[in-house]
């Protein structure tokens, strides 16, 4: 069982973020870290390979400036190798460009399953994974809250608004996992030390044959303007003088929640 996991390296959410005033793109100048929402995918993949008893986990990432800090976190957790696509022409890429790049990178390695997060913490587009599946001609199952491999199929409990669907899908396939699908492990010190001797293959747009087909120059999407979110209004405080429950119900009725 070989699994490719798409991982995004993002600016540390704990540090202040900023948008470039002209492009409105997120400023990614500092050190990047592994997106927390991808740690679930890495963990899921490690557990599935472990259960299968053979195979390995490959991380696939697109990031500026040969950034590998986030990849090292995934390698320290136990992934065997990483593929990093880095190219100045990729600055300002839209979701489709990113999907093309990741799909081409995934195609350079052997895989039975591709895992991605449902969406990234810094972009929240949530479209890249299914685009990758389409480009690779794979079936895709999104919003997995439980994933199991059974022979040549993957069985997924897929989160829905009403509950969950039980989906059985032939392999190879792409699955997007929700936060909480599994509890990501913390890297051990041995894991950290072994991560640096694990291979990280760095590829450019030219290596993938995608010059002119992906990147900022061919982005079909543009951020025209950005508005600050409206400051939140102070909430309503209900003091319970015995009618508190009644007041709450009336308030919720007014909002049409009940």
């Amino acid at each position, binding site marked *: 069982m070989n699994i490719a996991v798409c991982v995004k390296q993002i600016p540390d959410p704990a540090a202040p973020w900023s948008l470039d005033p002209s492009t409105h793109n997120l400023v990614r100048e500092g050190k990047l870290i592994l997106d927390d929402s991808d740690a679930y995918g890495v963990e899921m993949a490690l557990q599935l390979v472990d259960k299968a008893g053979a195979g390995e986990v490959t991380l696939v990432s697109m990031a500026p400036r040969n950034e590998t*800090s986030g990849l090292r976190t995934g390698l*320290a957790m136990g992934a065997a190798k990483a593929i990093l696509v880095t190219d100045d022409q990729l600055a300002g890429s839209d979701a489709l460009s990113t999907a093309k790049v990741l799909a081409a990178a995934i195609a350079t390695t052997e895989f039975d399953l591709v895992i991605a997060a449902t969406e990234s913490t810094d972009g929240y587009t949530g479209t890249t994974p299914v685009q990758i599946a389409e480009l690779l001609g794979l079936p895709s199952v999104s919003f997995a809250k439980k994933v199991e491999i059974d022979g040549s199929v993957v069985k997924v409990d897929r989160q829905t608004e009403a509950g969950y669907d039980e989906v059985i899908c032939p392999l190879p396939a792409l699955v997007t996992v929700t936060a909480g699908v599994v509890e990501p492990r913390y890297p051990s*010190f041995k894991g950290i030390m072994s991560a640096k001797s694990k291979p990280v293959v760095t590829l450019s747009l030219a290596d993938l044959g995608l010059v002119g087909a992906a990147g900022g120059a061919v982005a079909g999407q543009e951020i025209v303007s950005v508005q600050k979110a409206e400051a939140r209004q102070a909430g309503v405080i209900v003091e319970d003088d015995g009618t508190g429950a009644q007041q709450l119900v009336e308030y919720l009725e007014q909002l049409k929640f009940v």
Partner: protein
Amino acid sequence: MDFRETEDHSALRKAVGDIADQFGSDYYVAHAESRTPTTDLWKRLGELGYLGINLPEEYGGGGAGMTELTIVCEETAAHGNPLLLLLVSAAISGEVITEFGSDAQRSRWLPSLADGSSKVVFAITEPDAGSNSHRISTTAVKDGDGYLISGQKYYISGVDEADAILVVTKTGTDSAGRAKMSLFVVDADAPGLTRQHLPVSVTLPEKQFTLYFDNVRVGNDRLIGTEGDGFKQIFQGLNPERITGAAICVGIGRFALERAAAYANNRTVWGASIGTHQGVSHALAKSKIEIELAALMTMKAAWLHDQGEPAGDASNMAKYAAAEAAIGAIDAAIQVHGGNGLSTEMGLLPYWGLARLLRIAPVSREMILNHVAQHSLGLPRSY
């Protein structure tokens, strides 16, 4: 000169910080308030190889050094979970047994120190021998194929959590009348050894004890290194103890300033955030500078120790600077919080208590100043 942190060290910082964050400062404060050990965090760090990071790989350790142990101490503290017993168990006992223990002794103690399944705490202080350890009177007397230990130690941390204690004893007197020392690993439940809880008013998860040794029998296999060489041998552990103590202080300082800056940015008293007032911001800026300087010296001391270079001066200076900086930072943080700074819910006081302790222990501020005056400045010995 290269001040950039290596990728390994950044990854180590992040991993340890994340683990401490998972527990959170509330976890530490609750355990400090109830005086119960933070065992779950200790176990977690042990399983993942962070407690034995400085111990040799062949005994289950991480094969790294004091620099890495310093990072573990600093990051746990910076994320609200300082671990006082790292000073004694990982730094002193770990280093001394590694350096002077026989193969059998290392095999016996180091693997369980490394994976966090046991602790070996450290006992040198006596009622009549604190700063002046030459005056210790706990004696070990040769008896058959072992020794009998008698005497009293006090303020010994973590005995209730430990499997064994590295005990500094007197096995003779030199020509100047000073104790000739020898080190023994004594089981915490050895017959003849009794312990009594010694309450302290700083809120710590770790408890202190008075230990009474009444002819406690230990085999020759419990003598670490050479009889009579104990004083020289503990020096191998005392620098690491000071360096890790400094690291905890740097962590406390970072933790305090992060809390203080967040509060100063949010709290409004006169229409603008209190951080606007220089009376508030300068106090934090000053502490920030002091913490950064102490962090640099701490790293230098750890580096010197790892290089096998003399690290005494740097370790002492780092410990002094970091304890002073930490007390300043946590005091400033408390002040920024106003009345809330003293609330149990805000949970700042336990960190002040620990920083305040680290001005006294493992070596007091005054003894460091004595050392610097005499050894770095060539001034006359004052005592």
